[in-house]
């Protein structure tokens, strides 16, 4: 994740940064949705 202050941000850097936080969050949301589905069963 380390980047120099200089130079353009690449698409790969952006994708990695968002995946870094997005994947754990998505995992947590799916877990919660599975639990929430029990309300309707």
């Amino acid at each position, binding site marked *: *994740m*380390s*980047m*120099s*202050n*200089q*130079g*353009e*941000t690449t698409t790969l*850097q*952006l994708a990695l*940064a*968002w995946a*870094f*936080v*997005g994947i*754990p*969050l998505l*995992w*947590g*949301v799916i*877990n*919660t*949705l599975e*639990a*929430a*589905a*029990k*309300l*309707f*069963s």
Partner: protein
Amino acid sequence: MALLSYLDRERTVAGPGFSRWMVPPAALAVHLSIGQAYAFSVFNLPMTKLLGISQSAPNDWKLTELGWIFSIAIVFLGLSAAVFGRWVEEGGPRRAMFTAGLCWGGGFLVSAVGVYAHQLWLIYLGYGVLGGCGLGIGYISPVSTLIKWFPDRPGMATGMAIMGFGGGAFIASPLSVWLMGNFSTATHIGVAEAFIALGVIYFCFMMAGSVMVRVPAPGWRPAGYVAPAQPRKLITTRDVFVYDALKTPQFWLVWWVLCLNVTAGIGVLGQASAMSQEMFPGHVTPVAAAGFVGLMSLFNMGGRFFWASTSDVIGRKNTYFCFFAIGTVLYALVPTTGQLGSVTLFVCCFLVIISMYGGGFSTVPAYLKDLFGTRYVGAIHGMLLTAWSAAGIFGPVLVNYIREYQIDHGIPKAQAYNVTMYLMAGLLVIGFFCNLAVRAVSERHHMREDAMARQGARG
């Protein structure tokens, strides 16, 4: 020394070509970590059986004693955000995120020692005091940075970060259960090991955030964005010094706006499971109630992004008008849903209410930015978070004590929440008028040009 200088604000100034979309993930890395606080309760029950293992032994900790851990952490969240707000603002986001990571990760490690030694005071000190400081510093650290990167959409930007705080529990809850399961044996409950693992994971996660974060160069503007030359209604183009903000009625009006909105939401958030089962006996099972709580958490998180983004379009004041007007109607409607026996209507009411509870947190930084400018918004936000600490006490106390009073006076459990709901509606009416009273900050509170130039030179 090299590490310390790496943390300086000057070292975080972005060069040309840096994408501002790198900053929200940096902020999320911190907020998703400290959002674990909402899931701390998963440790409560295991920690009542550390000695007895299968059941509580006489010397095991009581749930009432363990409940203080979270309360101390929330109190220190508010205190540290208020005390360290100016330091966070002037030292820059990287130093603040790094410090928050040290406090948050270190808090878990000290707590692990407390579990090993079976010394509860060490957990109060570790998770409560040290972790609470990590919560406060971490919570406010990315706010003003995001506002500076997204002057065109400050609500959306802060909404994204603060959404992470709501979402942190989704990750922490199953992760904690999984870790404890892995470290537990027939003769040992793996709470201490889970604390160590969480401390290390969160520290690394927050360090990644602190490495990624950048502040915009002075004078930077997004492509195509033209800052309004003249102030509009509530939106100032000037800055107010952090301690001068406290002298304005606007700060205290917004303090009450946040406090009342949070009081109404936090009380029912903690009681949602019990309330749904008691209002609809036989219809809502404990498993379904757990699903309801999960759904509420999702709307709490989603509301943070949705309402803060909406505030960029309709304005902060109008957004809070929505919270208070719609919230009043929905709270007043809840007893009727019980009388009608409509679980669906009950669930819908609370999902909207809880989305607005989350929205209250995420919209307030942009509201402060509108009123007090961007320079000290993080520090002012820190001071405002004392409203959260106060609401954390008022809300649950109101809901719990009124319910107990009702039941003690012979009211059936299914109707024991009616008075509370009407009271919450009443609190929101007061909040509506506090919000109505908010006007633009008087020019006499604005920083003078020479002071702004001096502060500007510092970053």
